[in-house]
């Protein structure tokens, strides 16, 4: 049969010389109008005929199932002409009844019904007394569905030859339709005789038996069924026949059946004859069962394959070679490269020799159904040294941010679903627009370890972050960022004493790790061990009188003068030690002695030009001194060198704003957003500008939907500046474990004071002071300012060394607390409040001069 797929394939076009007859479709078994016609077969593309594939004669096309016979039209026509003319010739040569029947049969075979009718009429007249001719014509009429005509011929044939089986069967069929079953039976009596099946088809007898059954004459029906069973024993194995017989037996209440036992045949189930009207239920069931068995077998094979092909990876980031032995596997030598093993599920004893020796039991396995669901992998991380980063990325039109999980410190790690083990995820996937797909990669973290530690801390895995940092710090003691990250993690985990003791162990590391010492000093001072710290460093200086140790000893000093002497000595010993200059500059800055601070800050920045902090400090000094143009040009020069430099961007903003060139500042920020630099940097800069310019409404709007830390902080700033203290506290709660910034707490306190929210003010103040005390000697001194109601000593305040902004905030708070010294304290605060970073505007608001009563309207 022609068929097309998406309009491409073969198709019939054309319908000539059509004729139809009523008959039974050989395929679907329905009694329908079967159609025959000439047509042409085409190869079609989108149903457009392209290539003719020949003329065809379609025979008996069923309108229901469209099944048909097809012949080559030319061969059909040739065969038709030869057969019919041959039969006609034979008939003309010898006009016998057989020859006439042959002509008629040929005409019918080739669907020449009209001509067959003509011949049929001649035959009816000419062979009126020939019973076989009449019987043949009757059969032909039945074939054409002309029942009335067929009956007339059957009757005539029966009159002529009552012994002929054909008319008897034809007439009996009619009697059955009329309900005259006994007459029909009489006509079919020859079929009931023993051995009849050897000469005749017993179909009419079954038809009669069924008619008896339908008429509820079950005795007669059963008698006929018994004859059928005797004559045709295989019929007993046909299910439909058995059911029919059983129906009559049941109606008669017979307990014994005439049916033999049904033979079971597996082959028969699959190849059994089709009952009328469709496939047998048992066969359907058997085929279905076979398909299910095949599917189950496929699943079982697939599952077994998965079970036998589990992936185990071995990573070794210890830097030393290690031998990994698994039960039943050859020993693997693990250097730095990743190694992959494919193992069947089970328990394996793992022994690691060499670096980080360890023995443990590796259990690989999962549930039957879990095998289909996940892509699990097992990772043997030698010594737990490698940092594994699992990244879960959602591919969608609007994807959520990727989820990153860190794993380190454990020798054996299990990841239940990793689609890309130790591979990079694709940049993009081709999907449907509504589709969403999640892929997970696992990789060994190769970036700066500080990033991993910061990230772990941010994810609330501070304990793990501490462990990672402690693992890596001895290897990279000069990594200042890692030291800072370690401190943050220790603070978040409230493990400052642990951090201090850890850092103490590394004080003797050489070359000397400056940041390591500084961190240690901060922790010691936060713990209130200033004196012992000074002694400790005295001994170190004595033992090793280096510039660095002098500098560090200066930091440990309780008195600014003593500290300055050590810094000076350090500069003498090593004039190119930037920290020694910056320490002095810092001290001057905290006193708002901007002039004194300038050369020192310039020298420090010159010695360490890449240091953002030094650069920003220098700019702050210059801004305080009103040297805006210099700041502007230096910031622009820096941005030219490093386009994504945060410090340069911030300082340029500050310079513009200090010169009231707000539009230029905004344009600069906007140009940055459009320049294609990192989105994070552009966002930061935009928000910095919005805050610095005092546009808090826009700032709030900008940060409202941002759930990142930066977004939350920025939103909190905007809210605080607008007096929405409670909301700000909800965004960044004071009691949050991660809250480690004392100045933020103090800023809330200040904002609450300005808003008249006393309870929040006190709470925030207490929290801020608590954190301040932990921060070091200068901070501790500052905290003491709030423990007394007595008037403050301005000289003492001046000696407190704190970052200018922090000190400014404390002074602003102090100014509110000590109203009698307000002017003095507020003035000092305003002098220090140079940088427009948060809480610049709060401080400005809190310290603005009180108008004299006489000018109040």
């Amino acid at each position, binding site marked *: 049969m022609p068929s097309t797929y998406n309009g491409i394939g073969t198709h019939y076009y054309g319908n000539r010389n059509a004729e139809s007859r009523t008959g039974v479709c050989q395929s679907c078994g329905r009694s329908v109008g079967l159609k025959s016609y000439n047509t042409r077969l085409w190869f079609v593309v989108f149903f457009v005929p392209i290539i003719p594939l020949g003329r065809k004669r379609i025979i008996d096309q069923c309108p229901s199932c469209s099944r048909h016979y097809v012949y080559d039209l030319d061969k059909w026509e040739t065969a038709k002409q030869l057969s019919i003319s*041959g039969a006609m*010739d034979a008939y003309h040569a*010898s006009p016998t009844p057989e020859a006439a029947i042959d002509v008629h049969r040929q005409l019918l075979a080739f669907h020449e019904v009209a001509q067959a009718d003509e011949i049929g009429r001649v035959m009816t007249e000419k062979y009126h007394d020939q019973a076989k001719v009449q019987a043949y014509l009757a059969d032909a009429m039945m074939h054409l569905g002309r029942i009335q005509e067929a009956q007339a011929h059957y009757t005539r044939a029966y009159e002529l030859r009552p012994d002929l089986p054909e008319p008897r069967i034809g007439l009996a069929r009619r009697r059955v339709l009329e309900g005259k079953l006994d007459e029909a039976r009489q006509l079919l009596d020859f079929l009931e005789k023993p051995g009849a099946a050897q000469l005749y088809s017993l179909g009419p007898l079954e038809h009669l038996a069924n008619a008896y059954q339908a008429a509820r004459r079950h005795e007669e029906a059963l008698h006929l069924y018994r004859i059928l069973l005797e004559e045709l024993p295989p019929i007993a194995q046909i299910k439909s026949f058995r059911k029919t017989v059983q129906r009559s037996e049941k109606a008669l209440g017979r307990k014994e059946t005439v049916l033999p036992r049904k033979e079971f045949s597996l082959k028969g189930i699959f190849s059994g004859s089709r009952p009328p009207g469709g496939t047998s239920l048992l066969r359907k069931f058997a085929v279905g069962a076979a398909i299910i068995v095949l599917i189950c077998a496929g699943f079982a094979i697939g599952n077994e394959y998965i079970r036998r092909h589990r992936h185990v990876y071995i990573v070794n980031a210890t830097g030393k070679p290690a031998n990994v032995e698994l039960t039943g596997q050859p020993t693997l030598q693990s250097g730095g490269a990743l190694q992959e093993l494919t193992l069947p599920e089970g328990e394996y004893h793992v022994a690691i020799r060499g670096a980080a020796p360890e023995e443990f039991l590796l259990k690989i396995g999962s549930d039957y159904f879990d095998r289909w669901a996940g892509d699990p992998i097992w990772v043997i991380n030698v010594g737990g040294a490698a940092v594994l980063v699992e990244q879960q990325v959602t591919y969608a039109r609007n994807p959520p941010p990727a989820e990153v999980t860190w794993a380190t410190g454990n020798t054996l790690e299990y990841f239940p679903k990793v689609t890309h083990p130790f591979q990079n995820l694709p940049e993009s996937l081709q999907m449907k627009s509504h589709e969403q797909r999640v892929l997970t990669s696992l990789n060994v973290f190769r970036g700066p370890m500080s990033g991993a530690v910061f990230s772990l801390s941010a994810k609330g895995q501070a304990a793990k972050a501490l462990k990672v940092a402690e693992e890596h710090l001895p290897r990279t003691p000069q990594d200042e960022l890692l030291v800072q990250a370690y401190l943050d993690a220790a603070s978040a985990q409230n493990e400052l004493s642990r951090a201090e003791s850890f850092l103490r162990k590394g004080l003797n590391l050489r070359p000397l790790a400056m940041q390591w010492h500084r961190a240690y000093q901060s922790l010691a001072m936060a713990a209130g061990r200033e004196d012992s710290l000074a002694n400790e460093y005295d001994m170190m200086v004595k033992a090793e009188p280096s510039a660095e140790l002098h500098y560090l000893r200066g930091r440990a000093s309780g008195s600014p003068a003593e500290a300055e002497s050590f810094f000076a000595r350090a500069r003498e010993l090593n004039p190119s030690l930037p920290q020694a200059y910056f320490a002095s500059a810092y001290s001057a800055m905290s006193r708002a002695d901007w002039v004194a601070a300038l050369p020192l800050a310039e020298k420090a920045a010159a010695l360490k030009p890449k240091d953002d902090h030094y650069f920003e400090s220098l700019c702050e000094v210059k801004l305080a001194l009103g040297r805006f143009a210099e700041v502007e040009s230096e910031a622009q020069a820096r941005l030219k060198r490093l386009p994504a430099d945060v410090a340069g961007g911030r300082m340029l903003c500050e310079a513009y704003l200090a010169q009231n060139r707000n539009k230029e500042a905004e344009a600069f920020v906007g140009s940055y957003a459009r320049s294609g630099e990192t989105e994070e940097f552009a966002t930061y800069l935009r928000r910095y500008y919005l805050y610095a310019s005092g546009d808090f409404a826009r700032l709030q709007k900008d940060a409202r939907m941002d759930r990142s830390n930066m977004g939350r902080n920025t939103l909190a700033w905007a809210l605080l500046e607008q007096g929405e203290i409670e909301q700000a506290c909800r965004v960044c709660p004071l009691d949050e474990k991660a809250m480690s910034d004392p100045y933020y707490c103090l800023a809330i306190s200040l904002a609450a004071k300005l808003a008249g929210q006393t309870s929040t003010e006190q709470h925030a103040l207490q929290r801020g002071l608590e954190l301040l005390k932990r921060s070091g000697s200068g901070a501790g001194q500052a905290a003491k300012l709030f423990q007394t109601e007595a008037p403050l000593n301005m000289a003492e305040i001046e000696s407190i060394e704190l970052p200018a902004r922090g000190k400014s905030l404390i002074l602003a708070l102090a100014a509110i607390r000590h109203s009698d010294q307000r002017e003095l304290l507020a003035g000092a605060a305003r002098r220090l409040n140079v940088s427009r970073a948060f809480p610049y505007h709060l401080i400005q608001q809190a310290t603005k001069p009180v108008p004299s009563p006489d000018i109040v309207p």
Partner: protein
Amino acid sequence: MTREKFDRLVKEAEAGAAQDDRALRWRILRLAIIGYVGLIGALSAVFIFGLSLIFVGCFLTPPNSGILFSLGGLVLLAGVWNAMGVFWIRLKPPEGIALHRDDAPALYAILDELQRALKAAPFRKVVVSDACNASVYELPRLGVLGWPSHHLVLGLPLLETISAEELRAVLAHEFAHLSKRHGRAGTWIYRLRRSWEQIFRRLNEAPSQQRAFTRVLLIRFVDWFWPRFNANAFVLSRAQEFEADSVATHLAGAHHAANALLRIELNSRLLGERFWPELWRTANEDANLPSDVFLRLRDALRAGVPSATAAQWMEEAFLAVNSNQDTHPCLAARWTAMGRNRQRPASGVSTSWMGAVEPSAAETLLSPMLNRIRLDLERRWRKDAEKPWRDMHAKAQSLKARLETIDLARDRVETDLEIAWDKALTIIDLQGDLAAEPVLRQVLALRPSHPGANFYLGRHLLSLADDQAVLHFTRAMEEDESLTLPASEALLGYYRRVGNTDKIREIEARLDTHETASRTAEQRGMILSRADTFLPHLLTDEQLDSLCGVLCRHLDLVSADLVRKELPPSMRRQLFVLSLHTRRRFLRGPDADEITAIANRLLTTVKLPGRVLIIGPAGTYRAVARKIAALDNVEVYRRV
């Protein structure tokens, strides 16, 4: 290939063999190698094609590679499946009662002695069957690739018929085929031919789904190869039959060897034409299978046939001629080769050659086990015969009932052809041709040309060796072409029996023509081509007038040409080709559908003495129509 062509090939091979026997062997060897190469090559082509698809798939990317892998895999799978179908054809081992060494030590002693004497391959198994024959079965363990195992089949009727000495000659003949006397190559070719004969017969059967794929590739090769190999190997095999006879003569004596051949010939006929048909005819009356069948068989053999019949059979046995359908030479040739031509039995002593000798080989060699063998064989026969016997009995009952109903109109039998013919057919089915003879004659009295009646009467008369049979067969074939095959085959059997070689050739030629014509019509579907030769129609004026009268009713017809296609002389019915020319339409050529429509209307009205094919200048036969139009004096009608 036709019988005539095969006979020619055999003759050529015989002529070659007469000059140089070695050349014949080499030729057969070459053909055998070609056979192996062809068979394996055809299958290799499938494998190479499948592997090529997979190979190309290796260089492509998914999904194209997957498609090619799948296709290649399917081709390979189909190739393996079909190779299994061709090479691993399971030939059924011969059926019968296995005869072990302990059962028949005397028989095995003869077999061992002959095997040693002839240095022949041993028999894997000896079985006793119900046939009146002895034969060696070779079952190739690897299909066409060979590695045969040998089974000896001894028919109990044969053992009952001949003496132990005569059986020794028979066994010597069979062993000779397996011995080195034929030469290694000769034995191998002999066996190869027999194996391939069975396998190619299976291959040529209607294609099963399993073998259809391979058949397409193999059938053309087999059609070319097999007749050539078979013809050459046939000549060699026949020569080896004579050699085997010579061995039998040498080891058992010419007297015993020749007597065995004659006894087998006559008693086979006795069993085939008398004993078994008569036994089965009892199924008409008795629903139960008869008991002691093989004792009855022995008794029937001992009783023999009337002397006149025996004399006739004896005469016919020596009159029979060689056939190229069977490698075994005719009896006369074998007796002559054995030097026994002058000792031919006189017709008066014919009855002594019929029936069983006493003591028979069965009694001598199987004595203690003979009754058990008879019983086992009978049990086996009963098992096989049970259903056919029951069916035959049931059919007989039904036929009797039918005969009774026909007999109700007994008075019309003599006048009503239809009733007479029904009765004749019923009697033939029930009682055989002999009983139906009077009714058949009644049918022929009513219509002498009745094809069926002529055929059956001919068949009956042929069994009586009545020359009138030929007349009836001829009439039957003239009236009904479908009877050509059975009638010719019956006549062929008869003429072979009486040794009429001219008639044999004539009938074989007729069969060849008939089969070729049928096959060609079947295969081509088209029977006309431009290459055909067309002859003048030779119609009478009256017939032409009648034709023109019909044609002039079709107004679209402009002219008509009529010719006769030249057909082989054996094809009785003429084929007329009527080429129609219709009115030309503006900017349109001849329309095939229009011609077809006119042809359909003319079909039942045109009266010509033969078949008619109506064509036109459009459609499939347009080239033929142009060729006819170019001939002289073919136009029979033109509208004025």
